[in-house]
């Protein structure tokens, strides 16, 4: 559905992205991950045909990105915003019509979504009179009202309360079940783990990892121990050749490095605390993210030193 081929974008001497390629298959939920400034938004803007790549190309549904592909995409930018002084209803119709809908179709579709989000009473109000959460709902409706084949959400859950987050999650899953392709950018790992089929990981303008989430996890193998316990957990600090993630007073995720086995950790744990839970698992996405980014950054700096 979306093919990104070797794109690069430079602003003067600053390279925002370089040599970036990935494919988003139809009907999948694709997660774009990466630290701030890694090139996620730049890439998303090129997919949306807001900017054009200096090199490479973006193919949407078999054709280069352009005004036609824009109609197929619904885009929720990270920086939210609508016209504050414009009435909600007029505003939504305006945005839907810019996506190529007729006035009639726009009204029909908006009625459905406004009812769905319990927002029908707000159409006569100016946007500025709504609360932050209500504005977020309107913004989301504006993104999907024209029934786009591709939905691109940049940090869709930021600023939402848990109830609205859940509603949004349901709608995203529902859109996906209807066969829509979803691409979302975030640095909230747990959401990616729950929702995404495929991911790509950005760092410093490059893609350092891409593929189906399951494959990526499997390829890295089981290398993490999760334990729950009661008692004095200070022995964890004395373990060699491990990295500790997600530590609390009775819980820890321990990443095994350089020859340490899960059996070593089990023995140590039994001898110091009452173990209530022990699990040997694949690494969490968070762990993958941190390791890969750190490795990539280290490699880059070594390369730069050699050069």
């Amino acid at each position, binding site marked *: 559905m979306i093919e990104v081929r070797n794109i690069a974008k430079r*602003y*003067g001497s600053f390279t925002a992205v370089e040599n970036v390629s990935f494919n988003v298959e139809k009907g999948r939920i694709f997660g774009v991950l990466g630290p701030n400034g890694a090139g996620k938004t730049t890439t998303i*803007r090129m997919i*949306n*045909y*807001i*900017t*054009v790549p*200096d090199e490479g190309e973006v193919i949407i549904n078999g054709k280069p990105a352009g*005004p036609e592909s*824009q*109609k197929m*995409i619904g*885009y929720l*930018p990270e*920086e*939210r*915003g*609508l*016209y*504050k*002084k*414009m009435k909600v209803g007029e505003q939504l119709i*305006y*945005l839907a*019509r*810019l*996506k190529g809908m007729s006035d009639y179709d726009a009204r029909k579709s908006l009625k459905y979504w406004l009812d769905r989000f319990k927002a029908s009473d707000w159409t006569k109000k100016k946007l500025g009179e709504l609360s932050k959460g209500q504005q977020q709902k309107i913004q989301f409706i*504006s993104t999907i009202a024209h029934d786009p084949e591709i939905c691109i959400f940049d940090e869709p859950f930021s600023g939402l309360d848990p109830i609205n987050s859940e509603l949004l999650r349901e709608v995203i899953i529902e859109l996906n079940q209807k066969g829509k392709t979803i691409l979302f950018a975030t640095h909230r790992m747990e959401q990616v783990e729950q929702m995404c089929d495929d991911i790509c990981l950005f760092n410093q303008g490059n893609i350092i990892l891409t593929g189906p989430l399951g494959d990526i996890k499997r390829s890295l193998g089981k290398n993490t121990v999760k334990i729950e316990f009661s008692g004095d957990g200070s022995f964890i600090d004395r373990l060699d050749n491990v990295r500790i993630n997600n530590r609390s007073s009775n819980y820890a995720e321990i990443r095994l490095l350089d020859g340490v086995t899960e059996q070593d950790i089990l023995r140590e744990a039994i001898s110091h605390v009452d173990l209530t839970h022990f699990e040997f698992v694949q690494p969490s996405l968070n762990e993958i993210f941190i390791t890969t980014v750190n490795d990539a950054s280290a490699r880059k700096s070594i390369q730069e030193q050699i050069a």
Partner: protein
Amino acid sequence: MIDFNKFGIIFKREYLTRVTSKAYILTTLLAPLIFLGIFLIPIAVTLLSPDTQRVVALVDETEVIAPRMIEINPNQFVVFPDLTLEEIRTKVTTGELNGFVVIDEEVLDGTRTPELIYGGTGGVGFVADVRSALRTSIRDEKLDRAEVTEEIRGIMAERVSLTTRVLTETGEEEQDTSALFIVGIILGMIMYTAMFVYGGIVMRGVIEEKTSRIVEVIVSSVRPFELLMGKVMGVGALAVTQFAFWILAIAGISAASTPILLYFFGSRVSEAAGSSDTQAAMATIESELPFTIPEIGFGLILGFIIFFVLGYLMYSALFAAVGSALESETENQQLTLVVSLPIIIPIFFLSPVSTDPDSTLAFVLSMIPLFSPIIMPVRMAIMNVPLWEVALAITLMAATFIALIWLSARIYRVGILMYGKSASLRELARWVRYS
């Protein structure tokens, strides 16, 4: 190149949201009323000014000047032979008298300038009346003393007047240009204000879309160029609507002014004109006004509209580019100044251009595209600018507009997506080169 369907949707929104706003409706309706006020008040003042007689006491040591002045205006001048200077002074402070003048032989000789001591009210007209009466009286007294013949008196009283006629290529045409000077200055000021007001609307629109971040949503549906053109044209249509309304309103007011004036001041006018003939009555009114109402030709209105539209297009493109680089309206005055300067500079030349619209300076200024919208209408109001000059200025402006919209669009498409801080002029230059 441009999707006219999307352009139309944007144009419609930009136009309709503004044309229905309360502020717009209010200014559009009120301006002609203010014009009506400006037009009617001087007439009303001239015709209806109450004859509050201001009384000046004359303390005349020569005893020959005061009778002459009283003869000139018996209501204005009095003498109090029994009162001392101090008592007269008290009468002025209490308001019983409006002022007094001490006249002695030195004044008559011209060795001392007489002084009018007065309560401070009455203004220039009052002082001028006293001066005029005093001057005439002293002159007549001196002429009498010198035993001058009637013939020389006649020469002294003679006044030479000058009328003007404009010689055009097609023949001769009689027209007084002194009043057109005012029309020129007014047109220049209107252009100046309009460039700032409508350019400012475009700039604020761009800033609003940028700071509210909606621009990223919009440009995921339309090209930045389509958004820019929709906005510029939408606000332009707003300006044209407003001006069209005003021109019609003013034309209506002017057409209605004759009957209105006759209705209000009819009796006075016929009295003054000595006839009931409307034409003659109007001529009388005009002759009583402190200015003449100049004829504004169709050619001038057409020229004004063309220069207004082209000027607006050039400046709104510039203001849009600057707006895209700003994070808020108050930030980076340096950038706003850069686009404001070409509007401000011609204002300094309004006076030299309107006094000598045919000079090389006026010609050159009116050919500089960014100055043309303000300078050329001023020249056109005052003189018959050769058609080739007007055509050349229009061509240069059109070419400049195309260059500016290209440049502005390149800055704009980068600027609207740059968040965080306002950009400097140097950054703008760099944005132009981005692919």
